[in-house]
């Protein structure tokens, strides 16, 4: 049970696909321009990643090692086609905005990377957990980046036509944030922020672990 929890949570922070493994960056930089786009892209990736991990893990015994990559791609593209058609049918606006990035999930490094590195070597439950966790980590970073970029770049955040936050009409939005250089800047700052938080937490943990001497001394006094 503990191992499964580890499989699930690993993708969120410790091995976050974007901030730690640094894979799947191109779609993340392109899609994180709006929170709404980021959410839908994240859900699509969670769906494809989890199901393709499950199927690839299931068909391990019958997959010839030499041609495993083409087989992975066939599995992945089947699920991407499902997402593609569903979005096209039910959310045409978002489909139009995400554009080529939905079909491109087929060649997203995260999905092929997890298939090769994890699902091809692990059991069904573990692979499903890994897909969910990695997808959640991807979605989280995407939404955070989308929120920063949409808020600063356009002055407000709106999801499905509802304005969540607005900086007012006096705010002159720096359009830099919704351009590609802004995506790189935001990504760098988010990654730097996470590094800083982890460094501070590690320092605190170390301080809590080692200075038992100081504690006893003060306790004695």
């Amino acid at each position, binding site marked *: 049970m503990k191992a499964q929890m580890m499989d699930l949570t690993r993708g969120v922070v410790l091995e976050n696909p974007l901030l730690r493994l640094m894979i799947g960056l191109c779609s993340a930089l392109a899609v994180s321009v709006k929170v709404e786009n980021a959410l839908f892209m994240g859900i699509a990736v969670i769906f494809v990643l989890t199901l393709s991990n499950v199927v690839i893990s299931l068909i391990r015994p019958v997959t010839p090692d030499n041609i495993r990559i083409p087989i992975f791609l066939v599995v992945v593209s089947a699920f991407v086609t499902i997402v593609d058609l569903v979005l096209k049918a039910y959310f045409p606006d978002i489909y139009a905005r995400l554009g080529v990035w939905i079909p491109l999930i087929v060649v997203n490094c995260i999905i092929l990377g997890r298939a090769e590195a994890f699902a091809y070597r692990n059991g069904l439950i573990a692979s499903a957990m890994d897909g969910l966790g990695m997808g959640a980590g991807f979605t989280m970073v995407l939404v955070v980046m989308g929120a920063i970029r949409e808020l600063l770049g356009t002055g407000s955040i709106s999801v499905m036509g509802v304005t969540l936050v607005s900086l007012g009409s*006096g*705010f*002159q939005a*720096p*359009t830099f944030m919704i351009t590609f250089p802004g995506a790189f800047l935001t990504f760098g700052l988010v990654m730097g922020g996470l590094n800083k938080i982890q460094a501070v937490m590690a320092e605190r943990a170390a301080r809590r672990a080692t200075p038992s001497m100081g504690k006893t001394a003060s306790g004695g006094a």
Partner: protein
Amino acid sequence: MAENNLVVTVSPHVKSPGTTRSVMRWVIIALAPATLWALAAFGTAGISVVLISVITALFCEVVWHNLRTSKGVARTWLALALSLGVPAAGSAVGLGIAVAVATVTFMAAFTFSETALERRGEKRHVFDGSAAVTGLLFALVLPPVVPWWIPFIGSFVAISLGKEIFGGLGFNVFNPALVARAILVLSWPVYLTKGWFKPLVADATSSATPLTAIKEGTLAGLSRFYAPLFLNNPGGCIGEVSAALLLAGGLLLILAGIITWEIPSTYLGTMVVVSLLVGQDPVFHLLAGGAMLGALFMATDYVTSPITSKGKIVFGVGCGLITMMLRLYSKSPEGVTSAILFMNMLTPLIDRSLNPRPFGVSRAAKGVRK
């Protein structure tokens, strides 16, 4: 006895008496004539841009320094929050100029008090002058008529994102002032490409600069711009009023040994060659726009340009080529910012591939070792 005369140290063995402070003092002295001349031309508009920019740069430097050395952290956070929150709130309510004055005064007071406190204690850091130079250079590449928050945000970006986030002076990859300019041009193109004074007549705003004339197809009779561009041309950024004063400042820096001749001469030389090749007026290209300011003061930044003489020549030629390419074939009339930023990016590569041969190592051996 003999041991006392034998001093074993690691290189460098030849040391210069110069410090960061003395270098920055020279740069400010060299920029002073051009700046003062520009302020005379633009009046209060120019003075407020330069003041806001320099004070914001110093303020950001103090804040970063305090946060890094964990000095008065709570006080520093409070100052940072106030300096960002007050103008944001003020702008939302539309208080305009009052907010600007209040913010800048507050930031100047904080900077002054922190620096005064610092003098009693540890090594001086803030007034090594680099932040003041960055703030001044950034102001010099702005149009004279901009909202007050443009130099404010720009200087903040220059110091924070251009320099301190990389680890401070000496670690930045790109020229901080130009990073800020590039980000601001992408963010608020309206303010950064308008607000010029009219060329030849210093009384109107929002007119094209002489370089725009080329983009609009005027190629003949550009020599009428020579004298104004050389001495007094208000149609351009604050620092571009007089090419002659910039040139004098640059020569002063070269004579004082602060910068070397390689980058400015190859930069400007390449521009002359390219403009002759395509049949455009080379003198005009040198005098107009940011070529002088860029070649003498921006491209020669120690941190972001190559170390070796050969590397500097490659750097200068690259800057010149890209500047001319952008001026001739891109949408925008000027390309100095992008050219220098691009070559900044290549600087580590240039330094590594033009590594000088150490004394005593044969050419062949060096090649083999690589």
